[in-house]
């Protein structure tokens, strides 16, 4: 069984083809790093798998089923995480609101739900964190707590959109370690998007690289090469490997670092809930 399958998928947003006839398959239990320049479609790809962004043509299947809205076999961690308003609430109440918030009717937080929440918190070592106010947590602690929400309902596929953004290197490592552990313990497929390959390079099974409307999936050594990336970026790209680390260079500029810096500048604007154009 495949976890996620894109067949000749074209997605058009605001008159621009984000993906054009892109195809790839993610197998069950695979940890995939999703990379590509800003606007190459990392978020769009995840939203399309969730049924939130319509596709112009092609077919997407999730766990061999067609895409549906509110698919409980997908766990999702969006990039624009909101939470500005509820900053005083405890982490537990935030996670609980997600656990019982998908259905209408006055659902009680019963024993089974509480066990489910504890199970999800335990898997990311966040049980103690959940007692604290979300506004008091550090970036890395907050990320772990939010990650636990993606596990609610025991999904078979996790879509994690930029979980490393604005985290210190030490926290980045801990988030990547948790994702790898989730794959090992739960046998769950993970798509993990990032701006930089290096924090992920030793943890992921394969890499999915997006650019110029295309998607290329494969082992890091086969995909992250000068010829493949030159095609995806539409520019001359050189890949330099130093002591197991990978640097993607366009001329004198390190491409991924540069993209990351831009994102840092843009973050103030990205807070709006305007989907689509703001973060694709």
């Amino acid at each position, binding site marked *: 069984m495949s976890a996620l399958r894109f067949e000749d998928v074209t997605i058009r947003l605001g008159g621009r083809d984000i993906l054009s006839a892109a195809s790839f398959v993610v197998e069950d239990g695979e940890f995939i790093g999703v990379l590509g320049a800003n606007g190459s479609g990392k978020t769009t790809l995840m*939203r399309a798998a*969730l049924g*939130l962004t319509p596709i112009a043509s092609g077919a997407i299947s999730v766990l061999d089923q067609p895409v549906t*809205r*509110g*698919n*409980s076999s*997908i766990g*999702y*961690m*969006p990039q*624009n*995480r*909101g*939470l*500005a*308003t*509820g900053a*005083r*609430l*405890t982490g537990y*109440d*935030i996670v*609980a*609101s*997600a656990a*019982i*918030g*998908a*259905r*209408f*009717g*006055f*659902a009680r937080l019963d024993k089974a739900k509480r066990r489910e929440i504890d199970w999800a918190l335990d898997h990311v070592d966040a049980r103690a964190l959940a007692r604290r*106010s979300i506004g008091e947590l550090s970036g890395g602690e907050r990320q772990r707590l939010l990650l636990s*929400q993606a596990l609610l309902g025991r999904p078979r596929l996790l879509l994690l959109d930029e979980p490393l953004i604005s985290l210190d290197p030490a926290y980045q490592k801990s988030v990547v370690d948790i994702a790898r552990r989730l794959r090992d313990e739960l046998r769950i497929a993970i798509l993990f998007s990032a701006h930089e390959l290096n924090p992920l390079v030793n943890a992921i099974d394969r890499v999915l690289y997006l650019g110029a409307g295309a998607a290329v999936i494969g082992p890091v050594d086969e995909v992250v090469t000068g010829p493949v990336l030159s095609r995806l970026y539409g520019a001359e790209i050189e890949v330099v490997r130093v002591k197991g680390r990978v640097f993607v260079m366009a001329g004198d500029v390190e491409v991924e670092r540069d993209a990351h810096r831009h994102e840092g500048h843009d973050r103030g604007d990205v807070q709006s*809930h305007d*989907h689509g154009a703001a973060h694709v």
Partner: protein
Amino acid sequence: MFEYDFMRTAFAASGVAAILAGIVGFFLVLRGQTFAGHALSHVGFTGATGAALFGLSPFVGLVGFTVVTGIGMGLFGEKLAERDVAIGMMLSLALGLGLLFLHFYTSAATQATALLFGNVLGVDDSALLNLVVLALASLAALAVIVRPLIFASLQAELAEARGVPLRFVSAAFLAIVGVAVAECAQIVGVLLVFTLMVGPAAAAQNFSRRLPAGVALAAGLALLEAWGGLTLAFYSDWPTSFWITALSGLVYFASLAARRLTG
């Protein structure tokens, strides 16, 4: 003071409105839509004066206008509900229209004051029955949407991915806010709706970090402030609405201080 019929009715009416306002207001504050709630009350003024002009019950006009406008704001989505300028313009436009209706409706001076600043002592038994029925219906509706509402308020994108219809939830909630605004307007008037809808709810969120406790606290504070205001007004002969705003302000600023101290 309970030997007077009008005082008993006033306590019942302000109690019902305060509990509804406290609970609904909690979610209004959680969603950061307090200004939208404020604007709804001004639209209610237009509805009430317009209804009076056409010989209808002002309360029907009030409720009708706030609920319909609430649904409209919800359907426009966050694009409208979060735009301060658009809401502010709508708010002044609504008040202006209300003024025009008053201009044509000649016997309106006392009516206008009652609408703007409330007249809880003027609530009669049939009006009280209306308040109770509408409050119960609103709370029942809120119970049905409250889980997705909280989820969507805290994490809209994740809620959407999990299948929560954001626009419907937003419209349904603002319709409920419309009813709560109309009820509060009966007690403290359209200009002071903030004092019962937002004051106790914001204070509760400063005092409590837990959701269920916060909702209960908001309702309790609103009830205390309304009844406290009524009692103080009875003994001082100053306006009830003044006392309610004074208590609401006092509790809110105390909650700010408490939050500072506890961190």
